[in-house]
């Protein structure tokens, strides 16, 4: 007697196999040459000329097969991550594998091309695995909790991305093909990729099926599982290793492709399938089908316009799913909720009442240093003399017209990013929050790229205006969708990630479309290049007005640290406070992004560093964050200006590389506390 569940399982698997075959058939009919589905069929059956057969069997077939393997691998990784971390939005991307793989590929292509030619796939996979190992160590190895793993993954990802961006910026010729790779693509020349991936993927899938019963237990909380005889740590470790292998192979063969790991297991669970013995194969089938369809969609646009990159298409498919999840799931249990787990309650470094004064003096000193430091004809001595009124026209023009506005923009934008980060971390109750998580950077970048594509000769002020409008628009979408949930932190976060992913997808498409005519990288990695006094005055006027507002509402924002029931009991209007804090944060971040472009580390890093130097009140945190953020960005811009003279590195890339050791230190310190 077959139970209803077993019938449903069998039905899903049967449907899955049919869908996969159909997706396969659709996928192979698209390509760079005129061979369509009839050509492919004839190539298999017989009766096609040699060229058509070669295209069908040498290009289309391996491409479709790698798509199926990669889709299956990503989906199963996602399912495992979600089970083991007990979180519906866990995905393999947080482990930093893509960042490590991309860095290995970029470094190899630029510095050791013969090595890449010989062994591109193993090297890329190795890069991904090393990044994941770094994440593991950073998260505290044995003592890693889900939150620390996510944090560590974020740091490693940001840092490696910063290093990669630096490499790409210094090698403009090679950058193009590498940027194209980073969009993801199933394109294969021959069977090497399939031969490489097949044993890993099939092996890991088999291993996962063998451990299926164990994973069923892992979904229960740790104590119950252990009581039932499971060795939880070993299982989690094993699951992570499987996920790493699957993700590593996938990234090496098709590049970074996201959202399949999120969407496919969710679809399977929607059908009611829970047990891993069915969940795993069902996810594999669903993932494979989705990826093949996404690739077909991307290629079907070929007659009209250039194919969008695969990663962009999967993000377009997956981001709405994420947004839907945000609205449906509401409070996500588990990993992303611990407030302030990086806060160090142990001894402060400095008597915090003196901190603002010390920081302010440091800021002035650093600003002076940045104005005077430089290579070329006007060195530090000549530059310093400008401030004493020396009659040196060249030095005066360099210091007053070129360097001083940069330093001022860096200082005020740094302060803006930092305070925005502090506000968002408080209202979203998440130590990882910064303005990029609510879509400000993403929206700004999309707006700038759209303008660049439609009106390349537009004035500078128009670009800044577009960035401001884009940033505000994206945040507006997030907050208006989140208003229905009273701006609950977890909902806002998920919405923000979804909107950011959609923006990222559009960004990728626009970058690909303009890759030969424009240099989009300059806009994607934030920096202070060529900022004039207009930008400086704009930021000084607006940010100096907004930071006191943040300070004023600080007293209420502090109370948001409690859960909403307690906060309301004290008398706080929780939704209104969240909205107010959000508005100030968004305004600050959007203004800063409009002048510098996205600078990702600052809003995340400065508040945590400030916490160590400031008192318990949120108000003192605002002041310290602002000052530290300003110091950080001024220093980063200064380094970027001199380190590869006469070229320059954008401040965003420098921040990512230089900020990492600091955040690592914070992480290890809080781990010991």
């Amino acid at each position: 007697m077959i139970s209803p569940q077993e019938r449903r399982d069998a039905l899903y698997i049967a449907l899955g196999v049919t869908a996969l075959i159909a997706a396969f058939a659709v996928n192979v009919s698209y390509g760079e040459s005129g061979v369509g589905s009839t050509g492919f069929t004839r190539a298999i059956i017989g009766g096609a000329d040699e060229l058509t057969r070669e295209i069908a069997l040498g290009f289309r077939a391996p491409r479709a097969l790698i798509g199926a393997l990669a889709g299956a691998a990503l989906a199963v990784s996602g399912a495992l991550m979600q089970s083991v971390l007990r979180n519906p939005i866990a995905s393999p991307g947080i482990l930093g594998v893509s960042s490590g793989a991309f860095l290995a590929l970029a470094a190899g292509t630029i510095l050791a091309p013969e090595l890449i030619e010989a062994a591109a796939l193993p090297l890329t996979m190795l890069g991904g695995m090393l990044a994941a190992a770094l994440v593991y160590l950073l998260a505290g190895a044995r003592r890693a909790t889900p939150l620390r793993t996510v944090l560590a993954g974020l740091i490693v990802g940001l840092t490696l991305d910063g290093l990669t961006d630096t490499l790409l910026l210094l090698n403009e010729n090679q950058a193009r093909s590498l940027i194209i790779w980073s969009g993801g693509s199933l394109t294969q020349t021959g069977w090497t990729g399939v031969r490489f991936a097949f044993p890993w993927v099939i092996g890991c899938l088999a291993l996962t099926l063998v451990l299926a019963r164990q994973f069923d237990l892992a979904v229960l909380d740790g104590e119950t599982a252990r009581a039932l005889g499971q060795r939880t740590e070993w299982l989690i470790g094993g699951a992570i290793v499987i996920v790493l292998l699957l993700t590593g192979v996938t990234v090496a063969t098709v590049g970074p492709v996201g959202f399949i790991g999120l969407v496919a297991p969710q679809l399977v669970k929607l059908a009611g399938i829970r047990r891993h013995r069915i969940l795993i194969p069902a996810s594999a089938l669903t993932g494979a089908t989705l990826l093949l369809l996404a690739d077909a969609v991307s290629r079907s646009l070929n007659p009209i316009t250039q194919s969008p990159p695969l990663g962009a298409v999967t993000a377009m498919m997956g981001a709405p799913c994420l947004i839907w999840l945000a609205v449906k799931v509401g409070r996500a249990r588990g990993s992303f909720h611990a407030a302030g787990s990086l806060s160090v309650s142990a001894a402060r470094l400095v008597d915090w009442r003196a901190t603002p004064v010390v920081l302010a003096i440091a800021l002035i000193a650093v600003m002076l240093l940045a104005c005077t430091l430089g290579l070329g004809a006007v060195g530090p001595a000549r530059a310093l003399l400008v401030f004493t009124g020396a009659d040196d026209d060249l030095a005066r023009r360099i210091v007053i017209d070129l360097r001083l506005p940069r330093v001022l923009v860096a200082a005020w934008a740094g302060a803006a990013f930092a305070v925005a980060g502090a506000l968002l971390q408080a209202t979203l109750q998440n130590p990882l929050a910064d303005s990029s998580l609510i879509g400000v950077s993403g929206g700004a970048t999309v707006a700038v790229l759209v303008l660049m594509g439609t009106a390349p000769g537009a004035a500078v002020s128009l670009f800044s205006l577009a960035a401001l409008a884009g940033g505000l628009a994206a945040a507006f979408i997030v907050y208006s969708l989140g208003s229905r949930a009273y701006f609950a932190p977890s909902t806002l976060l998920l919405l923000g990630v979804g909107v950011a992913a959609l923006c990222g997808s559009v960004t990728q498409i626009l970058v690909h479309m303009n890759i030969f005519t424009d240099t989009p990288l300059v806009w994607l990695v934030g920096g202070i290049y060529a900022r004039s006094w207009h930008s400086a005055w704009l930021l000084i006027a607006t940010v100096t007005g907004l930071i006191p507002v943040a300070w004023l509402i600080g007293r209420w924002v502090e109370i948001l640290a409690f859960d909403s029931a307690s906060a309301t009991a004290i008398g706080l209007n929780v939704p209104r406070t969240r909205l107010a804090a959000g508005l100030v944060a968004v305004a600050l971040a959007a203004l800063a992004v409009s002048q510098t472009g996205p600078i990702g580390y600052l809003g995340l890093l400065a508040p945590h560093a400030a916490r160590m130097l400031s008192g318990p009140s949120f108000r003192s945190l605002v002041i310290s964050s602002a000052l530290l953020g300003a110091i950080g960005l001024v220093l980063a811009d200064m380094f970027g200006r001199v380190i590869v003279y006469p070229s320059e590195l954008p401040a965003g890339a420098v921040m990512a590389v230089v900020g990492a050791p600091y955040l690592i230190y914070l992480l290890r310190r809080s781990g010991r506390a």
Partner: protein
Amino acid sequence: MSLSRRALCAYAGAWICASGSSSAVEVRDAAGLRTISGKPRRIVALDARHTDNVLALGLQPVGVAGLNSYRKFMADAEPPLGHSAADVGSQSTPNLEVILQLHPDLILGSIRNMQRSRPMLEAIAPTLGFDPYPDDHADLYDVMVETFRSVATALSREAEARAFLDRLEDQFSAAKAALAASGFAGRRVALATVYSGPTAAQVAIFNDNSLPARVLKRLGFEYAYADERFRHVGLHASTVEALSDIRDTTFLYMPLNAQGVRGMMEAPLWRKLDFVRERRLYEVPYRVMFSGPLTAQAFARDLVRLLR
């Protein structure tokens, strides 16, 4: 606003002191009509196109962005880039301090790289920004010539420009005759740049409205690749599979790196392509083909040397 006022003053001024040569000229760049006064001789070229333009007019730029790359790919340019040119940094973020220190009186660049820096550059010296991809149906060779002429007007070297273009046409005619003598008249060709991508060899096929395609046509060939989708940039970046639709054609390829060529030739499809089977393919030295008149000249020289 102030531009048209300036132009009006320039017109008025030129009309009032109407004797012979006025020292202000009008040039149209991508942002509109500009007035350049005097004869600028300290020129900063912010990309390879404009370095080509300045050298072809018989002048030497005082500052070049992407200097090392230019020296590498245009080492055999006639006239070559001298040693006095200073490196002003990368093409996307040229160093404003270095440019200021050179005391230039004209800055030339592509408007698509000036989106952030134009006001700051204008504050240093009059800046002309040209659009290398003005619209979807442009003949990119004509765009190159028009930009060259505009730069010549700005530098008051129009005679030299005419002389250069005449020499170029003579060179093309001579080359066409030489190639016809070797039996290449009317032959169908297609040109592509080959480089190794991470997972597959990339083949970037030039479209028939691109600069090298037009040069090939002037040399008596028929260009065999025309794709409406890629007329804007004149290039279709694809894989070896796209080559299978090219029939009855001689294939010319420029290797960006050796790995790319090896990757392309290892694809099983490669051996089955028409032009491979009939051995109608030639390797041409790599040049950055999104460039100016000197590059067109050098490209024609390379072809004659190769195919004769």
